[in-house]
């Protein structure tokens, strides 16, 4: 099979993965809707005295179980998880065929970066998909994956091909590779931070939700960022500077891409500071985390496509 055919296969596999994630999304949504509200007021919220939300179906469903002794909500969630595993496997196959088609690491342009970054996020998600937290996260994360993969196979798609000379370097492997990993981690943590804000609001208003306790979400978001931040420091910033010196003769050029990598770094440094400052845990910190993720998205989409810097990465 030649590169073009392999590339087509990769595109088909990734589209398949996207389709499967859509199915998973419906299953997880169904799980969310079918879950009886009473069950939702979990240990973390037991101190709340708010009235349970009005939900006629919930009352009907709560007692019902199926043959295998699982509730419909649990069954839907189990379907969601199985389909997500299949989708992730398809995605992994898509990334692999892409890598075979181009005979290098699959993060040489935005299409490749998107599918590989999504794979990282999907694997991180599967690692804790069975936990209560993972189930709360599922709908949002899977939706994010569907959107990113949808973009990847459409507007961001480029047929497999060689790289411009500036990108033909092992620095690409390390520098962009670490950016992909951090991108995946930041994505998951942003979803967590968003849920944290929702959970805290609900708790303040005394509304019952299916969300885990806001403190749990807050801590997990922090942990992921605490992993992603040093990776971002080393990959995009330090190794980026080293590569820039090799490639352009100057380690810092204030090129839009570099500038935005720094802006992201500063935003997440602010987040870590907020987390260490009394009275800033919770919603305030989560908002900073979302701002940080906003800068990640901006530097990925806007900077690659709009600005014309030294980075020859964009090129859709």
């Amino acid at each position, binding site marked *: 099979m030649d590169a073009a055919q392999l590339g087509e296969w990769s595109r088909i596999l990734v589209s398949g993965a996207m389709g499967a994630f859509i199915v998973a999304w419906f299953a997880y949504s169904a799980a969310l809707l079918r879950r009886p509200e009473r069950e939702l007021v979990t240990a973390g919220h037991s101190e709340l005295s708010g009235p349970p939300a009005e939900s006629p179906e919930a009352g009907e469903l709560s007692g019902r179980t199926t043959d295998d002794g699982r509730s419909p909500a649990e069954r839907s969630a189990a379907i969601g998880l199985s389909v997500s595993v299949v989708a992730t496997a398809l995605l992994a196959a898509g990334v692999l065929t892409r890598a075979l088609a181009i005979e290098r690491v699959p993060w040489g342009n935005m299409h490749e970066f998107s599918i590989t970054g999504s794979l990282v996020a999907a694997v991180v998600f599967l690692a804790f998909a069975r936990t209560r937290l993972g189930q709360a996260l599922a709908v949002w994360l899977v939706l994010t994956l569907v959107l990113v993969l949808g973009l990847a196979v459409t507007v961001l798609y480029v047929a497999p091909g060689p790289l411009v*000379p500036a990108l033909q370097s092992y620095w690409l492997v390390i520098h962009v590779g670490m950016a992909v990993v951090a991108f995946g981690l930041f994505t998951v943590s942003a979803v967590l931070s968003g849920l944290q804000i929702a959970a805290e609001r609900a708790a303040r208003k005394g509304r019952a939700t299916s969300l885990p306790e806001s403190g749990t979400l807050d801590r997990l978001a922090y942990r992921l960022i605490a992993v992603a931040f040093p990776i971002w420091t080393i990959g995009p910033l*330090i190794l980026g500077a080293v590569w820039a010196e090799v490639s*352009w003769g100057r380690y810092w*050029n204030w090129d839009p891409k570099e500038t935005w990598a720094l802006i992201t770094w500063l935003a997440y440094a602010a987040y870590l*500071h907020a987390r260490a400052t009394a009275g800033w845990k919770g919603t305030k910190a989560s908002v900073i985390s979302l701002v940080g993720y906003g800068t990640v998205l901006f530097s990925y989409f806007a900077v690659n496509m709009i600005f014309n810097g030294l980075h020859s990465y964009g090129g859709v």
Partner: protein
Amino acid sequence: MADRGSDTRPPALSAGELARWVWRQLTSMRVALMLLFLLALAAIPGSVIPQRRANPLDVADFIERNPELARWYDRFGLFDVFNAPWFAAIYIALMVSLVGCILPRSRDHWRAMRAQPPRAPRRLERMPAYRRIVVDAPPDVVLAAAHAELRQRRHRTNRADDSVAAEAGHLRETGNLVFHLSLVIVLLAVALGSLFGYRGTVIVQERTGFANTLTQYDSLSAGTMFDARNLPPFALELDEFVWEVHESGPQRGTPADFEARVRFVPEPGEVEERRSIRVNEPLEVDGTLIHILNPGYAPAVTVRDADGEILAEGPVTFLPMDDNFTSEGVRKVPVGSGADIGIEAIFFPTAAFEDGGATSVFAGARNPMLLFTAYAGDLGINDGTAQSVFRLDTSEMEQLMVDGEPFRAALAIGETIEMPGGHGTVTFDGYVKWVQLQISRNSGKELALGGALLAVAGLVASLYMRRRRVWVRADEDEAGRTVVEVAGLARSGGGDLDGQIGDIADGLIARLPAPAADPVVRQG
């Protein structure tokens, strides 16, 4: 003032107290957080608005299109954000805040590291993690075992009569301080580098050379402490510039490979070496780097007068105008006895004719063609003012005409055409390639890199080390057995404190002389 109840308002006090208040604010976490955000925000215009240092042409273009707005931008230094005073003010404030924050913390940390871990509080069962064990070994044996166990787990310990106090994870604070101090190192290194470093560019045609002296540069920017005498005295000849272009596929027409093959003389009098410079593989001499920046074409024409006498010959650097390297340039031909001749030309590496006009359809030279027109008159070369080599000053010249139309000619390689009015002939001989080289030295880069790596090490320690205090107390109960209490207090979030305390208790039991007579464990 007490009724205000807010520590963020300046108290109306003496200047000294006001200064102290300002300092306290500046070095507070909240202000550090705000300054981090402010710096991030301040960097945004620098990435959105064209910057003079990076894209002077874009800036000129912007000013032409938005003169009114540009005036305001200029007023606030928005075309050179990263050198603007207000940008410097923010990062200097951040650095001052950082140092002001770090120094006292370093002092406190130094003291804390040398102080003994605080004694066990009286009621250990109130601690967040707690185990109670009853064993047969006497208290001092238990405490000795506890001491050994905690030591092995790399705690700092403090033994008292009835208890052992221990502390772990000082590396966390050490790491945090190292991280912040390293940021200062990086910033200083960058600042020093910009004082001593330089960066210049020069266009070199194939089969011509470059010697590293100030006068040979097309452009050079350098820090204030830069001394031209420190330029390494190398010289090079460009034998060939290899420029491969993708022939097919989605990247058709984009460069596949660049390689400048040079004969290189590191210092006058030394032997010549054959070297190659490629993208991502610069040539290094004495900390100075030579990079490939851009390629281009230099078409060669020979201009003869009506008698066949050669007036000018050889390649002239043309500047590319599009991705297919349609390039423009001029050939100035001073003629001593009569009118000067000026040729204004466009070079098409792969010419094609569309809609009656010529374009280049490929960056590689498959079908080179030169389209030109000519002027006669005074080039203005001798009036002493500096001139661009890429533009013709036609104010004192007249375009040559044929039948009332401006004279134009298109030549393939080897073709010759006669200019009207007896001004002689022009022959298109061919072309050579040129490459723009960048020659730069980044002083202080090793220091900056070292600082950055140190920062990462500190950061990792700061993020992943857990600080905790552990106490073990052993007392004899009425039955003559020994009650051992193990308790822990986490001083930084996260981590499995309870599991750790359990492990310590287990390790402690394992160290006691057997049999421990089925110890009774109670979890707190």
